């Protein structure tokens, strides 16, 4: 690692003791005067927890906000699907929780690959998030005394997760959406729904606007502003089969990358242990069964290989509760990457269940016996209902069959402590950035991070950018806007003109399978090299053989999909490259060459205790791997253990 590289990426972490950094930073940031705020325009792309919260909060401060999303309403962002809950260090249960403990669990859960200062700040503001959401009228679960209820989530020994049945994301998002709608009512937010951002406009080195396609009439539009916030979510749909909403994409982030934003740790992907298994090759998505189910469900496989018996015919003594066996302290509540790999290991060794043997049991019989069916129904009713809808099996009577699936991406655009990317004036919030979860995210922490970024970070740090930079007036007549629009138009037209033989979806599926096979739960150098070659070939074929019907001047879902797949085909290669370059295992990045005797991740702290951020170097050139070193001053580097 050369010093030139290390000097390049500076996370701008404030100095001083960790507990005082954010306070110090807030005190030192420049402020925009109240009467000047209305002179600034801010673009917020995305209306999920991060974007919705940021847009509403910035508008409350007095800025003019333009809010964009590709769905028909801001309320439908992918955050709506989050099920289990949101963490906060409230210690309402008096079980020893604290800001420190949430910080510690998150750093450890991330397998020591996150920036300590960011994680500490996240833990610090976590309690404010709950307060804010309660005040908005989010109907969190309550105890009989009227106080807020908690449940336990993976990777923690305390009960700090707040929830609204199995629909926590829905309720938190509707809270942020209601705050956003209030600002639309006050004229401070202008909504642009059914718009897809296709380019970032950078003027004199500063992000000053975006190009997007109006998905209803196909027109290309551009918008200028003094700051651009990307809150566009994760890139897990590169794998095709994932728990993401179908529209989730890497396009906005990828376009920004090509304009100079670095892409950090793309190989840190999270494969969630409890999802409904694949049933056929027509499958369009995979459905999560929330981690909260592991509170009451016990994971097991038969002790005997290829045991064909139905689960009720297998007595307790002939079952292997392998998580409880291998991790006696955490049991079924180990971190996600650990649980996923364990399921894969059991299935690959021939102990899997169901047709094809690619599943394990998640069994509620003991919990139902202990607490009664009504209690279980009250806690997880909607999840059980969903399971039954999809599989036609009744999980109150027979154990669920589950298997790991692509679920979340810890990697994302690189940001400093201020959530600013390598392009000044462009901030990245929520799942779209790389900041807080290291190489593995703990359950109930994404909602926390998205809302922390949106409600409590961006309103300060965006103000600092506006107050400390001279930002000359720029309109969409600027040549740079014209250039970006022209380039976008050419790209759309080229795609429509190929007129080949293969559908967009078939390319997407093939890319997804490549990534899953070579860059999924287990990776190795040879496989990754193969993946890179194959992805390149597939990309070439795409541009010569894809068939996109219809026109660019109308609502055209196939064209939308084509644009996203084209970007996934470029991005997928960088993802594989990142995995190949990281010669160690950590969290969700498991390289078979680097493992402990117990099949756990084996980090190489001497050589890889850093963030890897990829810089675009131009078409047909290899991207450059930049580095931000990580220091662990508060939580000493140790081998992570859930035993």
């Amino acid at each position, binding site marked *: 690692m050369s010093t030139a590289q290390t000097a390049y990426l500076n996370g701008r972490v404030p100095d001083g003791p960790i507990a005082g950094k954010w306070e110090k930073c807030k005190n030192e940031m420049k402020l925009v005067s109240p009467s000047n705020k209305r002179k600034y325009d801010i673009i917020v792309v995305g209306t999920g927890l991060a974007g919705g*919260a940021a847009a*509403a*909060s910035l508008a409350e401060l007095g800025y003019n906000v333009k809010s964009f999303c590709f769905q*028909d*309403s*801001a*309320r*439908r962002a992918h955050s*709506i*699907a989050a099920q289990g809950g949101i963490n906060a260090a409230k210690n*309402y249960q008096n079980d020893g929780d604290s800001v420190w403990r949430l910080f510690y669990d998150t750093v450890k859960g991330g397998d020591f690959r996150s920036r300590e200062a960011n994680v500490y700040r996240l833990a610090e503001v976590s*309690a*404010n998030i*709950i*307060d*804010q959401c*309660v*005040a*908005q*009228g989010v*109907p969190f*679960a*309550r*105890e009989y*005394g*009227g106080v*807020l209820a908690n449940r336990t989530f993976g990777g923690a020994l305390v009960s700090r997760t707040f929830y*609204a*049945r199995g*629909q926590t994301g*829905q309720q938190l998002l509707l809270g942020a*959406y*209601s*705050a956003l*709608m*209030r600002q*639309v*009512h006050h004229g401070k937010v202008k909504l642009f*729904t059914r718009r897809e951002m296709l380019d970032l406009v950078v003027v004199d080195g500063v992000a000053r606007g975006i190009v997007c396609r109006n998905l209803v009439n196909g027109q290309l539009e551009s918008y200028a502003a003094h700051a651009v916030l990307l809150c566009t979510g994760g890139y897990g749909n590169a794998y095709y089969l994932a728990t993401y*909403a*179908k529209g989730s994409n890497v396009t906005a982030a990828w376009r920004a990358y090509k304009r100079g934003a670095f892409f950090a740790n793309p190989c840190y992907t999270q494969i969630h242990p409890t999802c409904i298994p694949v*049933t*056929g090759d*027509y*499958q*369009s*998505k995979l*459905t999560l069964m929330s981690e909260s189910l592991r509170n009451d469900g016990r994971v097991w496989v038969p002790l005997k290989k290829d045991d064909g018996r139905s689960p009720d015919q297998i007595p307790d003594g002939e079952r292997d509760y392998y998580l409880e066996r291998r991790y006696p302290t955490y049991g079924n509540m180990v971190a996600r990457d650990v649980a996923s790999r364990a399921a894969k290991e059991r299935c690959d060794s021939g102990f899997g269940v169901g047709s094809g043997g690619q599943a394990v049991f998640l069994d509620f019989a003991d919990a139902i016996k202990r607490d009664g069916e009504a209690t279980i129904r009250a806690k997880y009713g909607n999840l059980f209902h*969903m399971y039954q*809808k*999809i599989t*036609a099996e009744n999980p109150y009577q027979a154990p669920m069959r589950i298997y790991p699936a692509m679920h979340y991406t810890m990697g994302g655009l690189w940001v400093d402590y201020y959530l600013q990317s390598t392009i000044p004036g462009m901030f990245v919030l929520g799942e779209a950035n790389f900041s807080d979860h290291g190489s593995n995210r703990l359950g109930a922490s994404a909602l926390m991070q998205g809302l922390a970024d949106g*409600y409590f970070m961006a309103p300060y740090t965006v103000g600092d950018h506006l107050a400390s930079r001279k930002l000359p007036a720029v309109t969409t007549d600027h040549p740079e806007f014209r250039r970006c629009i022209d380039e976008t138009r050419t790209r759309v037209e080229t795609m429509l003109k190929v007129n080949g033989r293969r559908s967009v*979806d078939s390319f997407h599926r093939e890319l997804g399978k490549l990534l899953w096979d070579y860059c999924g739960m287990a990776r190795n150098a040879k496989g990754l090299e193969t993946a890179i070659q194959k992805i390149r070939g597939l990309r070439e074929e795409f541009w010569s053989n894809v*068939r996109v*019907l*219809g026109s660019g001047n*109308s*609502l055209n879902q*196939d064209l939308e999909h084509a644009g996203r797949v084209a970007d996934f085909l470029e991005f997928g290669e960088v993802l594989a490259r990142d995995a190949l370059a990281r010669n160690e295992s950590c969290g969700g990045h498991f390289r078979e060459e680097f493992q402990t005797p117990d099949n756990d991740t084996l980090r190489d702290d001497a050589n890889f205790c850093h963030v890897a951020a990829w810089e675009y170097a131009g078409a047909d050139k290899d991207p450059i791997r930049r580095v931000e070193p990580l220091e662990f001053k508060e939580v000493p580097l140790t081998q992570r253990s859930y035993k």
Partner: protein
Amino acid sequence: MSDKLNLTLKIWRQASPGAAGEFKSYKLYDISTDMSFLEMLDVLNEELIQKNDEPVAFDHDCREGICGMCNLMIDGQAHGPDLETTTCQLHMRRFRNGDTIVIEPWRARAFPVLKDLIVDRSAFDRIMQAGGFVSVNTGNAPDGNAILVDKDDADQAMDAATCIGCGACVAACKNASAMLFVAAKVSQYALLPQGRPERTARVQNMVAQMDQEGFGGCTNTNECEAACPAGISVSNIARLNREYLRATLTGAK
């Protein structure tokens, strides 16, 4: 057990908002009963693309029944035949070999068709803008447990808050009324202490906006409740009416 179905689909095709639309028939063979309804449409679209026909446009995103994006009239029923089930959660095992399935967009004056099966539901957003919020800025909040909420109230508020905003209630109603949608939001806030201060203005403004958008009146046929994939109860409409009456009587705005 998975079986195979042969089906005839009659689908509404309409090129653009103003254009005349028509039903077109399509045949599909060997559809697995394990498929979701939308996966069946994916298969159709893949076949159409192979034949150089433009695929059918339909809204969808989460495909797990929570985002409220999918919205199909299936054989005259909003979201199809299953109770408390969105279109994306409907599975083909619900159909029989040889069935003809008629697929239309939501039909309502306030939801104009954009293309094929896609409609514009922004009227719902505008109703929310009129009052579907608690006026609290970021940073204003007291400690979460400083506001105690009776568990029953919290549970009932949650029952109402689970509305996914899909518009099935409007599509199912012969008057295209949006009462259930508005009632769900008004109820959630009416049941919670956080919603009380703005109670009067909220119900008045949301109802006024609903009328302005061109939704019809409610004549208590309960079709909305039957069609609602989130199981929102019509008892919320009774609560909305009480809230509205109360606001009118107390007069205050």
